[in-house]
C-alpha cells in the first residue's frame, strides 16, 4: 500500500473523472435518438419519416381504376405509354377526392408543342412539327385526339 500512501488527492481526482464519465453516459442516453445506429450511423426512424411524405402524383394505376374508357382509347395508339399525369399534371388530390377536386381543362396549344415542337436537338425518330407551318393556327385536337393522336383511330397516319 506504500505506493498509494500519499495518493489520496489523486484518487479523489480519479473519482471525479469516473463520475463525469457516468454523467456523460446518462446524458447520452437521453440525447441520442433511440433509433440511432439501428441500420448504421444515422437515425433509423428518419427512413420511416421520409417514406411518410404525401404523394402528389396519383400514378396511372389510380387513374385507370376509374377512367378505364380513356385507358382503352389510349391502347394501341402512339400515346399508349404516356402516363396520364405527364399531360394532366399531378392529380393525387383528385384521386383522393374525385367529387370535389376536378382537374383543370388542358390547353393543347401549350401541351402538344411542349414535346412536339421541331428542334434539331431532339432525337431524329421523334415526331416533330413546326407548329406555325403545320396547322396554320388550327388547334391540334381538331385533327389529332390527344389520347390517340393518329389521324384516323386505329389507322395509319
Amino acid at each position, binding site marked *: 500500500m506504500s505506493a498509494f500512501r500519499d495518493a489520496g488527492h489523486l484518487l479523489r481526482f480519479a473519482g471525479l473523472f*469516473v463520475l463525469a464519465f*457516468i454523467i456523460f*453516459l*446518462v446524458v447520452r*442516453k437521453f440525447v441520442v435518438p*433511440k*433509433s*440511432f445506429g*439501428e*441500420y*448504421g*450511423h*444515422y*437515425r*433509423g*426512424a*428518419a*427512413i*420511416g*419519416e*421520409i*417514406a*411518410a*411524405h*404525401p*404523394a*402528389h*402524383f396519383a*400514378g*396511372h*394505376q389510380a387513374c385507370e381504376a376509374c377512367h378505364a374508357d380513356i385507358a382503352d382509347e389510349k391502347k394501341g395508339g402512339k*400515346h399508349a*405509354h*404516356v*402516363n396520364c*399525369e*405527364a*399531360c394532366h*399534371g*399531378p392529380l393525387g388530390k383528385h384521386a383522393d377526392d374525385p367529387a370535389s377536386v376536378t382537374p383543370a381543362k388542358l390547353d393543347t396549344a401549350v401541351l402538344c408543342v*411542349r*414535346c412536339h*415542337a*421541331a*428542334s*434539331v*436537338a*431532339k*432525337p431524329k425518330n*421523334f415526331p416533330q412539327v413546326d407548329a406555325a407551318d403545320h396547322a396554320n393556327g388550327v388547334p391540334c385536337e381538331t385533327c389529332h385526339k390527344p389520347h390517340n393522336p393518329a389521324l384516323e383511330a386505329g389507322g395509319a397516319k
Partner: protein
Amino acid sequence: MNLSRRQLMILLPAAAIAWEHVLAGTPEAAPNYTMSEHWWSMLIDIPKCIGCGNCVRACQAENDVPDGRFRTWVERYHVSDENMMYPEVISPDGGKEGFPSVAKEDAGKYFFVPKLCNHCADSPCTQVCPVGATFISPDGVVLVDQKYCMGCAYCVQACPYGCRYIHPEKKVADKCTLCYHRITKGLTTACCEACPTGARQLVDLKNPNDPIHEFLRTHAVQVLKPQMATGAKVFYNELDGSVR
C-alpha cells in the same frame, strides 16, 4: 432509502443500461415493404429524351423543391465537330420550360442528359457528414435526415455530381430521395411517372423480374464519372463520351 456513495456508483450505470432497453422500440416502416428486398436505382435512356422538362416540373411539384434549386434537371449538350472535348452545355432553369430552338444549319450533334442524384453505393456525400444526418438506406437510396442535419454543406461540396443544395428556407441539405415516399408504396417516382417517352425508368436491381437485367446485358450502358469510384447507380444508355 439511504444510499451510500458506493451503492450509487454501482446503480447509476445499471440504470443507464436499463433505460436504453426502455427506449428501444420498434422502428416505423411502410406496410408490406421490406427494405432488404430492394436495391433501387434508375435507368436513363438518352436516345429517348426529348428535353421537354416534364421530369423537372414533376419533381418540383411532388417534392416542393424551391425555385432555382433542382433535385433533377436536364442538360442539353452540343458537341461540335471540331471540338469533341469541350461540349457546349446549357440547362436554362434546369430545363423546366424546355430549351431554345436550334437553327437547322447548326453543325454538330445535340442530345439531352437528364441528371439526378446517382444514389451511389459508395457515396462521397454520406462519408463526409459529421453528424450522421445523411446515409444510404438499406434499400440503396441516399437520404437526408432533415431533423438531424445542421446545414454545414460538407455533403454539397462532396457530391461530384452537384446533386445537393441547401434548402433556402429550412437551411438543411436537400436532394433527390428517389421519391422514397412513392417507391415504398409501390408507385414509381414522379419524374418517371411524368416522362412521356420512357426515357427514365425506376429500377430495382434486387428484383429478378425487372427488365433492367435484360437491358444491361444488351445495351451499352454507362454511369457518370466512373473514375471516381462512387458506385453510381443511375445508368445511362448510349451516353456520349463528352458528358461529365
